[in-house]
């Protein structure tokens, strides 16, 4: 077995800066590197990635590999997989971790199969086994009904981590590290699936993942119009509107509004679940909320098992009264 050594993280960049998941990945990477007593390196890929290298170092990285190329301006599977394959071939890390984001979900499986190794996606815990030094990868299965811990015997050991689970790294500007530029060496012909256009959802107000209050609706809202009422409450509470899967599948709301295992992981102070049954897949996305308030006409709805306050009743009647009273009460 060739020498696989050290922990590598992939530093996702969003609009020129590092999103919160990247800090979580770096925090987790540092912890694993310390458990192994080895180096932590990171990979910054993009068209203007170098100026983020110092930030990564401040977050505990020993070595930063920077790959810049005009072909890497936007995420495209073929280009990014090729670049990562090349870097891993050069660096040979024992462990590679990145975030369970749109990029992570897409990049990691393809990369793992290209490297002929095994990856575990959507981990909620990562640790190093003190005896075997293997990566212990824990992820929810059966929609969150069980937690499975895996190891694998092939290298690198690859995992993605769920959003908002790992402790983020605290930047310390006095930390020192090395920055190494790597030539992408990309031929345009590598890109077989080309990104033509990205249509971003209009962000009216606070982002779902940043909101301290989320007003979420389920299938029982019945249509796009119903969500206008939820929006009014969200505006009143300075929050954002979310949904379970059915409203997004039916396009009552943009797919990016979905909370749950196939959508976003959120952890607001208050999660208001309206006409939403509370499937375990949905709870996987909002179960970390500090408080949950549920309105549902079905007293058996499983959301009530997770809620702190509940009203059994027709949301169309409950919600307007709730909103009016809050308007009165809130400063």
């Amino acid at each position, binding site marked *: 077995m060739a020498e696989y050594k050290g922990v590598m993280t992939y530093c996702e960049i969003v609009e020129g800066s590092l999103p919160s998941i990247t800090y979580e990945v770096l925090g987790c990477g540092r912890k694993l590197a310390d458990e192994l007593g080895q180096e932590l390196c990171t990979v910054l890929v993009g068209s203007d990635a170098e100026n983020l290298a110092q930030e990564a170092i401040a977050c505990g990285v020993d070595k930063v590999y920077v790959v810049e190329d005009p072909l890497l301006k936007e995420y495209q599977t073929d280009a990014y997989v090729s670049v990562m394959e090349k870097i891993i071939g050069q660096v040979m890390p024992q462990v590679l971790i990145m975030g369970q984001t749109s990029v992570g979900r897409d990049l990691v499986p393809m990369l793992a199969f290209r490297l002929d190794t095994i990856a575990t996606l959507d981990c909620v815990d990562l640790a190093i086994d003190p005896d075997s030094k293997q990566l212990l990868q824990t992820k929810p299965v059966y929609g969150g009904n*069980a937690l499975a811990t*895996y190891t694998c015997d092939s290298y690198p050991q690859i995992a993605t981590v769920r959003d908002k689970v790992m402790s983020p790294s605290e930047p310390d500007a006095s930390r020192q590290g090395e920055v190494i530029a790597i030539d992408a060496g990309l031929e345009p012909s590598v890109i077989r*699936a080309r990104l033509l256009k990205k249509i971003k959802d209009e962000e009216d107000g606070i982002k779902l993942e940043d909101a301290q209050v989320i007003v979420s609706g389920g299938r029982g809202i019945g249509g796009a119009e119903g969500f206008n009422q939820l929006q009014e409450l969200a505006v009143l509470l300075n929050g954002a509107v979310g949904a379970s899967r059915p409203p997004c599948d039916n396009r009552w709301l943009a797919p*990016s509004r979905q909370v749950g295992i196939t959508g976003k992981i959120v952890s607001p102070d208050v999660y208001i679940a309206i006409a939403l049954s509370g499937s375990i897949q949905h709870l996987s996305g909002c179960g970390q909320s500090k408080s949950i308030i549920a309105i549902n006409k079905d007293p058996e709805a499983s959301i009530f098992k997770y809620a702190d*306050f509940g009203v059994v009743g*027709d949301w169309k009647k409950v919600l307007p009264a*709730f909103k009016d009273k809050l308007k009165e009460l809130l400063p």
Partner: protein
Amino acid sequence: MRIIVCLKQVPDPTSSSSGTTVDTEAKRVIVPQGTPPVMNPYDENALEAALLIKDAQGATITVISAGKNLAKPVLRKSIASGADELILLDDAAFENLDSYATAHLLAAVIKEIGEYDLILCGRQASDTDAGQVGSGIAAILKIPGITAACKVDPQNGKVMVERVVSDGIEEVESSMPALITVSSELGELRYPGVKEIMAAQRVPITVRKAQELGVDVSQMKKPNLVRLSSPPGRKAECQFIECETPEEAGTDLALKVKEAQIL
């Protein structure tokens, strides 16, 4: 146009969601008794994507499924919905396959089929939630892989795909053959009519065993399941607001959450 759809049989996620328990000793998930097998919902979305293409421009759709003791009546629904051919890779060796083995097995069978324009899979399975088989098949067959599609439209020898990402939609154009994983936003699988269900009974199904396929999954790399446990549940004691009318309950709820300083 020849389309291959990969389809997994799973315990019905809607009826198994409550009551699923974990046998930590045997490291097994136990779904409630009587949970019926169904087609993985995301794979149904993939089949629907194939059927939409067939509607628009004609296509031959081959469905492949791998597992142990597959339920023919369940998988035959794919034929009733409009697929042309069903191949079952059914063998005791194919029980609880992980992503690595599944992708290698399916890729081997697809290679044998040889000619195809598109391979469609669900974005993930509702039981394992791994989300790796599709990309794995693409990597093994060395064809482009596009994930989380909500629209698949082949035209002029290329395929246009809209894919769901966290902040919107991406439009991707790819050469063919290509592998595309499909997300639920594409739409639910159509309901077959009684006539179609009856007709599907007469369509022969191809069943193949591990030995004749020349694929030995026991020799493949695999993840080691070290531990299986129940997740820590969210502990909450729901305080129900009980009033004469729903309007009063709404008002009272506002008072209570204000009092508790939640809002």
